[in-house]
Protein backbone atom coordinates (compact mmCIF):
# COMPACT_ATOMS: atom_id res chain seq x y z
CA UNK A 1 0.00 0.00 0.00
CA UNK A 2 3.02 2.36 -0.14
CA UNK A 3 2.66 2.86 -3.87
CA UNK A 4 0.53 5.99 -3.41
CA UNK A 5 2.35 9.29 -3.75
CA UNK A 6 3.83 10.62 -0.60
CA UNK A 7 2.15 14.01 -1.01
CA UNK A 8 -1.31 13.23 -2.33
CA UNK A 9 -3.12 16.10 -0.63
CA UNK A 10 -6.83 15.72 -0.95
CA UNK A 11 -7.36 19.17 0.53
CA UNK A 12 -6.08 22.64 -0.46
CA UNK A 13 -2.54 23.25 0.67
CA UNK A 14 -3.08 26.94 1.35
CA UNK A 15 -4.81 28.10 4.50
CA UNK A 16 -7.77 30.43 3.96
CA UNK A 17 -6.87 34.15 3.85
CA UNK A 18 -7.01 35.84 7.22
CA UNK A 19 -6.38 32.61 9.10
CA UNK A 20 -2.63 32.75 9.33
CA UNK A 21 -2.51 30.44 12.36
CA UNK A 22 -4.45 27.67 10.68
CA UNK A 23 -2.23 24.70 9.91
CA UNK A 24 -3.55 22.85 6.90
CA UNK A 25 -4.48 19.19 7.35
CA UNK A 26 -2.19 16.56 5.98
CA UNK A 27 -3.01 13.44 4.10
CA UNK A 28 -2.26 9.85 4.95
CA UNK A 29 -3.39 6.67 3.25
CA UNK A 30 -5.85 4.89 5.51
CA UNK A 31 -6.86 1.36 4.55
CA UNK A 32 -5.91 2.12 0.97
CA UNK A 33 -7.66 5.48 0.56
CA UNK A 34 -6.53 9.09 1.11
CA UNK A 35 -7.52 10.45 4.50
CA UNK A 36 -7.03 13.98 5.86
CA UNK A 37 -5.84 14.37 9.44
CA UNK A 38 -4.65 17.29 11.56
CA UNK A 39 -0.88 17.64 11.86
CA UNK A 40 0.44 16.09 15.04
CA UNK A 41 -2.25 13.45 15.09
CA UNK A 42 -1.26 10.26 16.92
CA UNK A 43 -2.42 6.72 16.24
CA UNK A 44 -4.45 6.90 19.46
CA UNK A 45 -6.01 10.17 18.27
CA UNK A 46 -6.79 8.74 14.86
CA UNK A 47 -8.53 5.69 16.37
CA UNK A 48 -10.52 7.90 18.73
CA UNK A 49 -11.49 10.26 15.91
CA UNK A 50 -12.65 7.30 13.83
CA UNK A 51 -14.53 5.78 16.76
CA UNK A 52 -12.68 2.47 17.18
CA UNK A 53 -11.91 0.77 20.47
CA UNK A 54 -8.21 0.12 20.63
CA UNK A 55 -8.60 -3.30 22.19
CA UNK A 56 -10.49 -4.67 19.16
CA UNK A 57 -8.18 -3.57 16.36
CA UNK A 58 -4.58 -3.74 15.25
CA UNK A 59 -2.67 -1.02 13.45
CA UNK A 60 0.11 -1.17 10.90
CA UNK A 61 2.08 1.91 9.85
CA UNK A 62 4.12 1.67 6.66
CA UNK A 63 4.00 -2.12 6.91
CA UNK A 64 5.28 -2.13 10.49
CA UNK A 65 3.11 -3.09 13.45
CA UNK A 66 2.34 -0.27 15.85
CA UNK A 67 2.17 -1.90 19.30
CA UNK A 68 -0.89 -0.87 21.31
CA UNK A 69 1.42 0.55 23.98
CA UNK A 70 2.83 2.98 21.40
CA UNK A 71 -0.45 4.41 20.08
CA UNK A 72 -0.20 7.57 22.18
CA UNK A 73 3.40 8.26 21.27
CA UNK A 74 3.19 7.46 17.57
CA UNK A 75 2.71 10.66 15.55
CA UNK A 76 1.57 10.30 11.98
CA UNK A 77 3.53 11.84 9.13
CA UNK A 78 2.29 12.98 5.73
CA UNK A 79 2.05 10.08 3.32
CA UNK A 80 1.98 7.41 6.03
CA UNK A 81 0.22 4.23 4.96
CA UNK A 82 -1.97 3.12 7.85
CA UNK A 83 -3.88 -0.14 8.02
CA UNK A 84 -6.48 -0.72 10.72
CA UNK A 85 -7.73 -4.31 10.90
CA UNK A 86 -9.89 -6.49 13.09
CA UNK A 87 -11.06 -10.08 13.26
CA UNK A 88 -13.98 -11.22 11.19
CA UNK A 89 -15.50 -14.63 10.54
CA UNK A 90 -13.33 -16.92 8.46
CA UNK A 91 -12.58 -20.59 7.82
Amino acid sequence: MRGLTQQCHAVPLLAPAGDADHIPPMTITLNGAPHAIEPGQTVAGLLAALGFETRKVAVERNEEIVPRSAYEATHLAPGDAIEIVHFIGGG
Partner: protein
Amino acid sequence: MDQFMTDETVAHDDSWTVAGRSFRSRLIVGTGKYKDLEETAAAIAASGAEIVTVAVRRVNLSDPAAPMLQDFVDPKVYTYLPNTAGCHTAKDAVRTLRLAREAGGWNLVKLEVLGPPPHLYPDMPATFEAAEALIKDGFEVMVYCADDPLAAKRLEEMGCVAIMPLGAPIGSGLGVQNPAMIAMMIEQATVPLLVDAGVGTASDAAIAMELGCHGVLLNSAIAHAKDPIRMAVAMKHAVIAGRQAFLAGRMPRRMGADPSSPLTGLIR
Protein backbone atom coordinates in the same frame (compact mmCIF):
# COMPACT_ATOMS: atom_id res chain seq x y z
CA MET B 1 -9.52 -51.34 32.10
CA ASP B 2 -11.20 -51.49 35.46
CA GLN B 3 -14.43 -49.94 34.39
CA PHE B 4 -16.41 -49.65 31.22
CA MET B 5 -16.17 -46.20 29.68
CA THR B 6 -19.09 -43.88 29.98
CA ASP B 7 -19.97 -40.91 27.81
CA GLU B 8 -18.52 -38.79 30.56
CA THR B 9 -15.11 -40.43 30.58
CA VAL B 10 -15.03 -40.50 26.79
CA ALA B 11 -15.56 -36.76 26.66
CA HIS B 12 -13.02 -35.94 29.34
CA ASP B 13 -10.21 -38.44 29.03
CA ASP B 14 -9.20 -37.95 25.43
CA SER B 15 -7.58 -34.55 25.21
CA TRP B 16 -5.01 -33.67 22.58
CA THR B 17 -2.17 -31.19 22.60
CA VAL B 18 -0.93 -28.74 20.02
CA ALA B 19 1.97 -26.38 20.67
CA GLY B 20 1.82 -27.21 24.37
CA ARG B 21 -1.88 -26.37 24.68
CA SER B 22 -4.38 -29.09 25.54
CA PHE B 23 -7.90 -29.31 24.18
CA ARG B 24 -10.74 -31.73 24.79
CA SER B 25 -12.65 -31.08 21.58
CA ARG B 26 -11.06 -32.43 18.43
CA LEU B 27 -13.30 -30.31 16.26
CA ILE B 28 -12.01 -26.93 15.11
CA VAL B 29 -14.59 -24.75 13.39
CA GLY B 30 -14.42 -21.72 11.16
CA THR B 31 -16.44 -18.60 11.87
CA GLY B 32 -17.19 -17.59 8.28
CA LYS B 33 -20.16 -17.87 5.94
CA TYR B 34 -22.87 -17.60 8.62
CA LYS B 35 -26.05 -15.57 8.19
CA ASP B 36 -25.08 -13.27 11.03
CA LEU B 37 -22.96 -13.13 14.16
CA GLU B 38 -25.77 -14.51 16.34
CA GLU B 39 -25.92 -17.66 14.22
CA THR B 40 -22.10 -17.88 14.23
CA ALA B 41 -22.07 -17.83 18.03
CA ALA B 42 -24.88 -20.36 18.37
CA ALA B 43 -23.34 -22.82 15.89
CA ILE B 44 -19.93 -22.63 17.50
CA ALA B 45 -21.40 -23.22 20.94
CA ALA B 46 -23.37 -26.21 19.62
CA SER B 47 -20.26 -27.70 18.00
CA GLY B 48 -18.44 -27.89 21.31
CA ALA B 49 -15.32 -26.56 19.57
CA GLU B 50 -12.66 -24.90 21.70
CA ILE B 51 -10.61 -23.50 18.82
CA VAL B 52 -12.13 -21.28 16.14
CA THR B 53 -10.49 -19.93 13.02
CA VAL B 54 -10.84 -16.23 12.29
CA ALA B 55 -9.81 -13.95 9.44
CA VAL B 56 -8.05 -10.59 9.64
CA ARG B 57 -9.51 -7.78 7.55
CA ARG B 58 -9.63 -3.99 7.29
CA VAL B 59 -12.18 -2.40 9.60
CA ASN B 60 -15.22 -0.71 8.08
CA LEU B 61 -14.24 2.95 8.50
CA SER B 62 -17.77 4.14 7.85
CA ASP B 63 -19.29 2.02 10.61
CA PRO B 64 -17.01 1.86 13.67
CA ALA B 65 -19.92 0.84 15.90
CA ALA B 66 -20.74 -2.27 13.83
CA PRO B 67 -20.81 -5.41 15.98
CA MET B 68 -17.54 -7.30 15.92
CA LEU B 69 -16.83 -11.00 16.08
CA GLN B 70 -15.29 -10.68 19.56
CA ASP B 71 -18.62 -9.41 20.89
CA PHE B 72 -20.24 -12.71 19.93
CA VAL B 73 -17.40 -15.24 20.07
CA ASP B 74 -15.48 -14.41 23.21
CA PRO B 75 -11.71 -14.79 22.76
CA LYS B 76 -11.48 -15.56 26.48
CA VAL B 77 -13.72 -18.59 25.97
CA TYR B 78 -12.48 -19.78 22.58
CA THR B 79 -8.93 -20.00 21.33
CA TYR B 80 -8.77 -17.78 18.27
CA LEU B 81 -6.76 -19.30 15.45
CA PRO B 82 -6.12 -16.44 13.01
CA ASN B 83 -5.80 -17.55 9.41
CA THR B 84 -4.14 -16.17 6.30
CA ALA B 85 -7.10 -16.67 3.99
CA GLY B 86 -6.80 -14.43 0.96
CA CYS B 87 -3.01 -14.25 1.17
CA HIS B 88 -1.28 -15.42 -1.96
CA THR B 89 2.28 -14.57 -0.98
CA ALA B 90 4.48 -15.33 2.01
CA LYS B 91 4.87 -11.60 2.65
CA ASP B 92 1.12 -11.03 2.91
CA ALA B 93 0.74 -14.03 5.20
CA VAL B 94 3.41 -12.75 7.57
CA ARG B 95 1.98 -9.20 7.61
CA THR B 96 -1.52 -10.52 8.26
CA LEU B 97 -0.49 -12.73 11.16
CA ARG B 98 1.69 -10.05 12.72
CA LEU B 99 -1.43 -7.88 12.82
CA ALA B 100 -3.41 -10.78 14.29
CA ARG B 101 -0.79 -11.26 16.97
CA GLU B 102 -0.99 -7.57 17.86
CA ALA B 103 -4.79 -7.60 17.88
CA GLY B 104 -5.08 -10.58 20.15
CA GLY B 105 -1.69 -11.62 21.36
CA TRP B 106 -1.95 -15.06 19.80
CA ASN B 107 1.03 -16.74 18.26
CA LEU B 108 -0.81 -19.99 17.41
CA VAL B 109 -1.92 -19.44 13.82
CA LYS B 110 -3.28 -21.20 10.78
CA LEU B 111 -1.19 -20.72 7.67
CA GLU B 112 -2.85 -21.19 4.32
CA VAL B 113 -1.44 -19.92 1.06
CA LEU B 114 -3.75 -20.82 -1.77
CA GLY B 115 -3.54 -21.03 -5.51
CA PRO B 116 -6.20 -19.53 -7.76
CA PRO B 117 -9.83 -20.64 -8.21
CA PRO B 118 -11.45 -22.96 -9.05
CA HIS B 119 -9.24 -25.30 -6.99
CA LEU B 120 -7.86 -23.01 -4.27
CA TYR B 121 -5.33 -25.78 -3.89
CA PRO B 122 -2.54 -25.19 -1.35
CA ASP B 123 0.38 -23.40 -3.01
CA MET B 124 3.12 -25.45 -1.42
CA PRO B 125 6.22 -23.46 -2.53
CA ALA B 126 4.63 -20.27 -1.14
CA THR B 127 3.49 -22.17 1.96
CA PHE B 128 7.06 -23.32 2.68
CA GLU B 129 8.33 -19.77 2.33
CA ALA B 130 5.63 -18.34 4.59
CA ALA B 131 6.04 -21.10 7.18
CA GLU B 132 9.75 -20.44 7.38
CA ALA B 133 9.23 -16.70 7.85
CA LEU B 134 6.50 -17.19 10.46
CA ILE B 135 8.43 -19.73 12.51
CA LYS B 136 11.46 -17.43 12.46
CA ASP B 137 9.19 -14.66 13.75
CA GLY B 138 8.04 -16.75 16.72
CA PHE B 139 4.72 -18.03 15.44
CA GLU B 140 3.41 -21.53 16.13
CA VAL B 141 2.15 -22.62 12.77
CA MET B 142 -0.67 -25.02 12.06
CA VAL B 143 -0.36 -25.43 8.32
CA TYR B 144 -2.94 -26.17 5.64
CA CYS B 145 -1.29 -28.29 2.99
CA ALA B 146 -1.63 -30.68 0.11
CA ASP B 147 -2.11 -34.39 0.83
CA ASP B 148 1.56 -34.80 0.00
CA PRO B 149 3.61 -36.82 2.50
CA LEU B 150 6.88 -35.24 1.37
CA ALA B 151 5.54 -31.72 1.81
CA ALA B 152 4.06 -32.68 5.19
CA LYS B 153 7.37 -34.10 6.40
CA ARG B 154 9.22 -31.02 5.30
CA LEU B 155 6.75 -28.71 7.10
CA GLU B 156 7.06 -30.80 10.22
CA GLU B 157 10.86 -30.65 10.07
CA MET B 158 10.68 -26.89 9.63
CA GLY B 159 8.86 -26.72 12.96
CA CYS B 160 5.17 -26.50 12.10
CA VAL B 161 3.09 -27.57 15.10
CA ALA B 162 0.27 -29.26 13.17
CA ILE B 163 -0.11 -30.61 9.66
CA MET B 164 -3.51 -30.02 8.08
CA PRO B 165 -4.00 -31.63 4.68
CA LEU B 166 -7.17 -31.20 2.70
CA GLY B 167 -9.65 -34.06 2.34
CA ALA B 168 -11.11 -32.31 -0.73
CA PRO B 169 -11.05 -28.73 -2.08
CA ILE B 170 -12.07 -25.94 0.33
CA GLY B 171 -15.81 -25.53 0.56
CA SER B 172 -16.47 -28.46 -1.80
CA GLY B 173 -18.13 -30.72 0.75
CA LEU B 174 -16.89 -33.71 -1.22
CA GLY B 175 -15.74 -35.58 1.85
CA VAL B 176 -12.40 -37.31 2.41
CA GLN B 177 -11.35 -38.16 -1.14
CA ASN B 178 -7.90 -39.39 -0.20
CA PRO B 179 -8.26 -41.71 2.79
CA ALA B 180 -5.26 -43.87 1.91
CA MET B 181 -2.92 -40.90 1.57
CA ILE B 182 -4.26 -39.28 4.75
CA ALA B 183 -3.70 -42.56 6.61
CA MET B 184 -0.12 -42.77 5.34
CA MET B 185 0.52 -39.18 6.39
CA ILE B 186 -0.84 -39.91 9.87
CA GLU B 187 1.49 -42.90 10.05
CA GLN B 188 4.59 -40.73 9.61
CA ALA B 189 3.42 -37.62 11.51
CA THR B 190 5.04 -36.72 14.83
CA VAL B 191 2.85 -33.63 15.33
CA PRO B 192 -0.97 -33.57 15.25
CA LEU B 193 -2.50 -34.12 11.82
CA LEU B 194 -5.94 -32.72 11.10
CA VAL B 195 -8.10 -32.92 7.99
CA ASP B 196 -8.74 -29.29 7.18
CA ALA B 197 -11.04 -29.04 4.17
CA GLY B 198 -13.62 -30.96 2.21
CA VAL B 199 -15.83 -32.28 4.99
CA GLY B 200 -19.46 -32.11 3.82
CA THR B 201 -21.45 -33.94 6.44
CA ALA B 202 -21.11 -35.77 9.73
CA SER B 203 -19.99 -39.11 8.26
CA ASP B 204 -17.09 -37.36 6.49
CA ALA B 205 -15.84 -36.03 9.82
CA ALA B 206 -16.23 -39.49 11.36
CA ILE B 207 -14.26 -41.05 8.49
CA ALA B 208 -11.41 -38.58 8.99
CA MET B 209 -11.30 -39.42 12.70
CA GLU B 210 -11.53 -43.18 12.08
CA LEU B 211 -8.42 -42.87 9.93
CA GLY B 212 -6.61 -41.66 13.05
CA CYS B 213 -6.57 -37.91 12.54
CA HIS B 214 -6.04 -35.89 15.71
CA GLY B 215 -8.85 -33.60 14.72
CA VAL B 216 -10.96 -32.09 11.97
CA LEU B 217 -11.24 -28.47 10.90
CA LEU B 218 -14.35 -27.42 9.01
CA ASN B 219 -16.54 -24.43 8.34
CA SER B 220 -18.85 -24.68 5.30
CA ALA B 221 -20.29 -28.05 6.29
CA ILE B 222 -21.88 -26.37 9.30
CA ALA B 223 -22.42 -22.85 7.98
CA HIS B 224 -24.00 -24.00 4.73
CA ALA B 225 -26.21 -26.71 6.20
CA LYS B 226 -29.92 -25.94 6.06
CA ASP B 227 -29.90 -25.94 9.87
CA PRO B 228 -26.37 -24.97 10.91
CA ILE B 229 -26.96 -25.36 14.63
CA ARG B 230 -28.21 -28.93 14.22
CA MET B 231 -25.30 -29.76 11.91
CA ALA B 232 -22.92 -28.35 14.50
CA VAL B 233 -24.33 -30.84 17.01
CA ALA B 234 -23.98 -33.62 14.42
CA MET B 235 -20.34 -32.71 13.78
CA LYS B 236 -19.57 -32.68 17.49
CA HIS B 237 -20.90 -36.23 17.83
CA ALA B 238 -19.35 -37.42 14.56
CA VAL B 239 -15.88 -36.38 15.64
CA ILE B 240 -16.32 -38.09 19.01
CA ALA B 241 -17.75 -41.19 17.31
CA GLY B 242 -14.96 -41.38 14.76
CA ARG B 243 -12.31 -40.90 17.40
CA GLN B 244 -13.79 -43.57 19.68
CA ALA B 245 -14.09 -45.97 16.74
CA PHE B 246 -10.43 -45.39 15.91
CA LEU B 247 -9.39 -46.02 19.52
CA ALA B 248 -11.68 -49.05 19.77
CA GLY B 249 -10.14 -50.58 16.65
CA ARG B 250 -12.53 -51.75 13.98
CA MET B 251 -13.27 -55.42 13.36
CA PRO B 252 -11.53 -57.08 10.42
CA ARG B 253 -13.36 -56.98 7.11
CA ARG B 254 -14.30 -60.39 5.72
CA MET B 255 -15.69 -61.44 2.40
CA GLY B 256 -18.76 -63.31 3.55
CA ALA B 257 -21.19 -63.63 6.41
CA ASP B 258 -20.40 -64.66 9.97
CA PRO B 259 -23.52 -65.29 12.05
CA SER B 260 -23.83 -63.29 15.23
CA SER B 261 -26.11 -65.82 16.96
CA PRO B 262 -24.81 -69.25 17.99
CA LEU B 263 -25.56 -72.08 15.59
CA THR B 264 -25.84 -74.53 18.50
CA GLY B 265 -28.83 -75.14 20.78
CA LEU B 266 -31.35 -74.59 18.03
CA ILE B 267 -34.79 -76.19 18.60
CA ARG B 268 -35.60 -79.10 16.36
